[in-house]
């Protein structure tokens, strides 16, 4: 397996191209600029199209348009830029248009800071736009995961005809690590994948011979709208099987850290150091934060577990609400939080675990 050194943002873009992405539109915002810059160089090499949109709002609308033709299409942004895209994301979810987008998140709310943070958890998992839709949301903690998850995200988007989000952060976007890139899909396969979408795709149909493509982000009939909501709900329920997580040293754990993305990566290092000192600590790291891996929390032995430590780069904590639903009052839940662009330190997590362990 060939390993290459790659920046997180660039690995996401390259993995997308290898998965068959042939359209990208985006607007500059730190810390995700390397994604559009990479696509601008790379897409012309594979016969794809890159557009620097006049805004985030326009860019997501371009992706909505491109994906309607059956073309694998993507956009990316960061935090406040993602807010602007929420209009188009909601349209994609409503009209069943498969797209992939990445949030290389930063401090917030508002313009916040340009440094890494995890302040967008609710936005990513609960309300990425109006109308109560949901998406599968992947939370990579390494460049390798960012590449693999982006590659797979296009297949999930296609399977469900629904948007998929890669929720990363400013650390993962900028970090350079070895990565084994997923295989490049040949041109024939990419064009066959597009042709396979033709029946519903907005490419032109002869009204005398076949049903037209009619892509509806809403309905005139309230009955149709309600049915559409019910169909969507059934889709979201079907994702329970798709939940992914990493459970680390939980068998004998007395303290269990819950952390995702970059916080999960730092917490893994804390777990390894604490274990050397004999502290019985483990970790559940959701790799999909939507669907949330609730069942992983059912596997804990609550006679032994003294507390869950929710570690996030968000103040106030956000994922902790999903953790509470999963833990179902079976043990206390504490938090260890940083935000504003401050990357959480391993020592802070270690001190929090030790305090809980002694309590």
């Amino acid at each position, binding site marked *: 397996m060939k390993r290459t050194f790659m920046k997180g943002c660039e690995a996401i873009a390259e993995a997308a191209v290898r998965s068959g992405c042939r359209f990208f*539109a985006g607007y500059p915002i730190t810390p995700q600029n390397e994604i559009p810059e990479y696509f601008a160089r790379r897409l012309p090499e594979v016969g794809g199209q890159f557009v620097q949109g*006049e805004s985030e709002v326009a860019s997501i609308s*371009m992706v*909505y*348009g491109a994906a309607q*033709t059956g073309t694998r299409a993507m956009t990316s942004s960061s935090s406040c830029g993602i807010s602007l895209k929420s209009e188009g994301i909601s349209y994609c979810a409503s009209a069943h248009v498969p797209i992939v987008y990445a949030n290389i998140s930063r401090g917030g709310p508002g313009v916040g800071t340009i440094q890494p943070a995890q302040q967008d958890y609710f936005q990513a998992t609960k309300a990425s736009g109006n109308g109560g839709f949901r998406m599968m949301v992947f939370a990579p903690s390494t460049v390798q995961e960012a590449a693999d998850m982006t590659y797979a995200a296009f297949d999930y988007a296609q399977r469900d005809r629904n948007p998929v989000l890669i929720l990363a952060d400013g650390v993962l976007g900028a970090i350079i690590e070895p990565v084994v890139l997923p295989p490049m899909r040949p041109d024939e396969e990419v064009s066959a994948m597009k042709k396979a979408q033709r029946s519903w795709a907005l490419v032109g149909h002869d009204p005398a011979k076949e049903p*037209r493509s009619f892509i509806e*982000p809403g309905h005139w009939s309230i009955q149709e709208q309600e049915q559409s909501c019910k169909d969507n709900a059934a889709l979201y329920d079907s994702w329970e099987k798709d939940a992914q997580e990493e459970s680390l040293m939980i068998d004998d754990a007395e303290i269990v850290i819950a952390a995702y993305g970059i916080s999960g990566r730092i917490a893994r290092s804390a777990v390894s150091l604490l274990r050397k000192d004999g502290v019985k600590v483990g970790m559940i790291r959701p790799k999909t934060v939507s669907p949330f891996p609730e069942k992983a929390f059912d596997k804990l032995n609550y006679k032994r577990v003294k507390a869950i430590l929710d570690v996030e780069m968000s103040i106030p904590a956000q994922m902790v609400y999903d953790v509470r639903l999963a833990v179902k009052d079976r043990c206390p839940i504490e938090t260890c939080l940083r935000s504003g662009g401050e990357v959480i330190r391993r020592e802070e997590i270690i001190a929090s675990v030790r305090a809980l362990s002694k309590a």
Partner: protein
Amino acid sequence: MEKVYGRTAAIQKDMVSSLCPGCMHSTMFKLIGEVLEKLDILSRTASVFGIGCCGLGMQYITYDNVTAPHGRACAVATGVKRSTPETIVYTYQGDGDLASIGLGETISAANRGENITVIFVNNGIYGMTGGQMAPTTLVGMKASTAPGGRNPKEHGYPLHMCEILNQLTAPVYLERCTCNTPANVIKTRKAIEKAFQNQIQGAGFSMVEVVTSCPTNWGLDPIESLKFLEEKMLTEFPLGVYRDRQEA
């Protein structure tokens, strides 16, 4: 006997129009359909409709359609056209959609010279939402959000989209038409045909602005509306070809 006129195959046969009496959208849907048939591109056309009364057409037409987020039709069309160049893509947008909430998307797509066709229906008022002031509402004209009439000191002046886009280098064709008389309907059809021909030839961005009436929200009957259109609207929005690069 030779059949000289028939219903266009681009319009559904079993639909009853829900458009108001005197509304010109129905004429527009028919004209566009006739052009698509004449140019033999009906089977490879994708229509991108805006939000508002313009979007009502999605139910009446027989060919591919998507509704864009309000104002974003030119951005959506950019994505469709760039990813599938063999498809003929047009947007159909009202004045609120194209010139207010979508002003940025419209100007930017025109400035990039996207190879798309834009049909802009300008009746100087918000229709579906009930008569609010539009960017093209005439000075002094009453609207539900400008009950005393459009006052330039407070609201500024009507936007002239053909003239604004004519400041850009990239667009190839900009014409303003109307549909108040049979002669003008024929002129409008010719303009629409030209705008689609440009796209087929890969020439670039074409926009046909059509000044129309909205009797319901103007508070006038259809005949009075035609008079208002001729006397007031066409004075503010002069008809004509603003740009025709293909002619040269």
